[in-house]
């Protein structure tokens, strides 16, 4: 691009933001151009040792046939430009460290800074996965301690830290059920899943080759043992259930359900995404769970990172231990090693040893909290959710009258009264510097607002959220159009997601 064009492109995306008063003219851009648009031929962000000579030599070594001559459209920027680009991009995000982020089912708790520093220690960060175990005893020891800690926390017998996220933990669990059954000679084809379940549960079932049978929640918002008994058959391999469920309710009949399942030779898979309610309160193992997965990026304070990386350890009862995925470590002659001799294992879910960097963070957190601290965490998480539920009940009643735990699902009548939807409420919250709750989930609640404040948020923050919700309710009655047009205070107005899907533009193209 010629300089002038480049300059134009770089500014193309700049948007005049309004001044505070009507009389003030639009002011300059806050939008950040795409990295490709900030690029200029010949600009360098690194000084590489070899340089152009090296490149020529390599082409000779490999031969023209194998080689491309350019990476068309690839960015060309200086280091300061790259840094500025991404720092400015970062300023367009909300994050838990900066904003209240009560996203239900996501456990946006504080991520201690120390976690990241520990993961960055050269002894962990620079450790190649193929390092012989006797040269990495610290890493294997950490894995062993982490497995033991999660077993203790969940009341299960064995833990695999391999899965990269909750959904992969689900897959691992379901494949173990299948492998166990195959080992016994026959495979049941069905898995029961409640209608309130998170979408990954049915998706994982399909991936694992199971057919989903939907269980209806009872009128009081929980799963009744009767419903499970109704659905049980010799073709049902398991029930997959989140506890507390996605309404935030502890499943009161979970033990009865477990018994019913076991009686019919089926297993109980517990989705542990809501484990932040259960630390030191009730152990999945004690409920009768055969399998539970955890999301370290929820309960154990590893960062969400705008969508990962996370880690989704899976914990099982003794009978499933042989089926756990690779890798497994064993202690031999006082030394941890990888166990290659596991004929019943479901195999690998991914390369190497799991998201080790996330394990370091979560282990750091567990040491910091301790057994006592974890138990306190759940109790305070429950207190926060109960408080929000209670204080908001006038205009945002709970979807259930039963006690709830670390989150609450609220509903409202604004859509029928004023045409203001849950989405509008959510967008208006952004104007007040708060991230909205999870909305329209679980599917069974009309216009659901699923609020999970977490234990690391202060009473003052909750109060300010409550006050804001009340205020928006009042605004919706007074000036519904304004609320429907929210957000008003951000660099961008409401974003058109429909067009994005209708005419997908999924990459930048050089003009």
């Amino acid at each position, binding site marked *: 691009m010629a300089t002038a064009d480049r300059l134009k492109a770089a500014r193309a995306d700049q948007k005049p933001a309004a001044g505070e008063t009507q009389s003030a003219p639009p002011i300059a851009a806050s939008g950040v151009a795409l990295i490709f648009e900030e690029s200029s031929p010949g600009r360098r962000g*690194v000084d590489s040792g*070899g340089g152009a000579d090296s490149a020529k030599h390599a082409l000779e070594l490999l031969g023209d046939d194998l080689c491309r001559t350019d990476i068309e459209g690839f960015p060309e920027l200086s280091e300061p430009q790259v840094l500025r680009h991404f720092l400015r991009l970062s300023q*367009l995000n909300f994050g838990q460290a900066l904003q209240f982020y009560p996203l239900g089912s996501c456990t946006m708790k504080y991520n201690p800074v120390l976690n990241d520093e520990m993961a960055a220690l050269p002894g962990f*960060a620079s450790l190649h996965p193929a390092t012989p175990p006797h040269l990495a005893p610290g890493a294997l020891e950490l894995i062993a301690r982490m497995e033991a800690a999660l077993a203790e926390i969940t009341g299960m017998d064995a833990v695999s830290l391999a899965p990269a996220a909750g959904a992969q933990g689900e897959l691992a669990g379901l494949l173990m059920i299948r492998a166990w059954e195959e080992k016994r000679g026959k495979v049941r084809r069905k898995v029961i899943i409640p209608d309130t379940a998170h979408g990954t549960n049915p998706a994982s079932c399909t991936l694992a080759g199971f057919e989903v049978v939907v269980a209806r929640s009872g009128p009081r918002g929980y799963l009744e043992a009767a419903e499970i008994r109704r659905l049980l058959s010799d073709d049902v391999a398991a029930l997959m259930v989140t506890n507390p469920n996605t309404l935030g309710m502890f499943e009161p009949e979970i033990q009865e359900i477990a018994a019913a399942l076991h009686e019919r030779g089926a297993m109980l898979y517990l989705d542990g995404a809501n484990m932040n309610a259960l630390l030191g309160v009730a152990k999945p193992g004690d409920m009768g769970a055969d399998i539970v997965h955890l999301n370290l990026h929820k309960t154990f304070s590893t960062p969400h990172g705008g969508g990962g990386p996370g880690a989704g350890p899976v914990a099982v009862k003794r009978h499933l231990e042989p089926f756990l995925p690779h890798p497994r470590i064993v202690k031999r002659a006082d030394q941890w090693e990888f166990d290659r001799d596991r004929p019943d294992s479901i195999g690998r879910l991914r390369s190497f040893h799991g998201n*080790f960097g996330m394990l370091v963070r979560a282990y750091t957190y567990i040491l*910091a909290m301790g057994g006592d601290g974890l138990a306190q965490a759940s109790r305070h998480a429950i207190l926060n959710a109960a408080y929000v539920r209670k204080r908001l009940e006038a205009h945002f009643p709970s979807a259930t009258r039963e006690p709830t735990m670390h989150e609450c699902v609220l509903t409202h009548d604004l859509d029928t009264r004023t045409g203001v939807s849950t989405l509008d409420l959510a967008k208006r919250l952004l104007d007040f510097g708060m991230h909205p709750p999870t909305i329209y989930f679980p599917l069974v609640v009309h216009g659901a607002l699923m609020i999970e404040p977490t234990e690391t948020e202060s009473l003052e923050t909750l109060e300010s959220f409550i006050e804001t919700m009340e205020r928006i309710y009042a605004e919706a009655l007074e000036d519904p159009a304004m609320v429907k047009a929210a957000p008003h205070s951000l660099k961008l107005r409401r974003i058109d997601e429909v067009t994005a899907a209708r005419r997908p533009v999924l990459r930048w193209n050089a003009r």
Partner: protein
Amino acid sequence: MRFIPHTEADIEVMLKTVGAAQLDDLIAHVPQNLRDTAVINLPDGRAEAEVADELTQLAARNPGATGFISFLGGGYYRHYVPAAVRAITARAEFATSYTPYQPEVSQGTTQAIFEFQTLITQLTALDVANASMYDGASAAAEAILMAHRVLPKRHVVAISRALWPDYRATIRTYLSALGTLELVDLPFDLATGEIDRAALDGLATGELLCTVTGYPNAFGVIEPLAQIVELTHRAGALAIAVTAEPLALALLKPPGALGVDIAVGEGQSFGMPLQFGGPGLGFLAGRSAQVRQMPGRLVGQTTDSEGHRAFCLTLATREQHIRRERATSNICTNHSLCALAATAYLSLMGRQGLRELAARNVELAHATRAALEAAGVRRRFTGQCFNEFVVALDAPEAALAAAERQGILAGISLANDYPELGGNLLISVTEMNTPVEIERLCGVLAGGR
């Protein structure tokens, strides 16, 4: 409780509001027997300094991390990570945000992913890339599932044996439960280290769903991808290329340009530390026509209500939130922050820098291979290599042990995974290896050959 802000007074106020006398009243509805056994028997919480000390000691007990000259590769590669990458991923706004479900307050994440998708399409010369997968191995498995959605009537999956063992194992796991797909191993040519094209020819029937080829492969060999694609396409099947060392794509003909339908791989080389193998970054790219069969998230360009450019998650109908059991994948949380690291890394390296770095890897690896040959250490395969190659040793275990005594991790023995390559060692050479290190490697392997 430094992470929990509640004071005694706060708790009192709050309990009063909710009508409870004490904290445990709030969990009174949880069955008594469960509560009775719920105590977590772990040591009490500790001060930050003590925790830091404990972890620092554990980290120090990994001499393999920093105390050795290393030639380990095999799917994870030692590359320099510029400090700016760390400064960017450390930003709390990036690190502590959730999946960008509210695009108005997630333009940082969504735009960065859009840039990531573009970079991957540029590197692979394909039309569309997704927002990330867990890693290269699971991305390879998902690519096969995607191929199956495109060609649902076919069922033979031909997988190169020269694909990394972890990748093949992962694919087996992912496909095991479906029961509908038949996995067939494609043997490699013992001389070249490339896929045995005759064997592939034999599989090229109307049942063939896809071929899965490492590019470069697990021996570091640059497969003749164009020919493999041709054979695959001749059978009407889809060609999947899998790259664990994506730096190679800066220099090699891109998969898309050679006709590959789906390119996947591991992005760890692009700005992620080794971290004992994770988190890394899976990437997956394909053709526009098949975008609705793609797994994983996608970010698209759109506008806000005033017409300004904006970015948001899109085509979510493929995902479990919408289609639940009919989703294209169960992946939800992916590896977004790693994709950000890769985006920052690639932006810093840039159009010239990345190619020069790739070239430097080629130069060093080829020089090492030549020096080893000069010292009498036989190269195992004739196939061309990028930054990794296999040598044949008489007593590889002894050689590895000798090297270790001299402070060198000389490579990865292939004996475990490839019995027919018992005496063979996979050696990876990157820009992190100095000429002196290479010399020392030659010395020890020539001695122990």
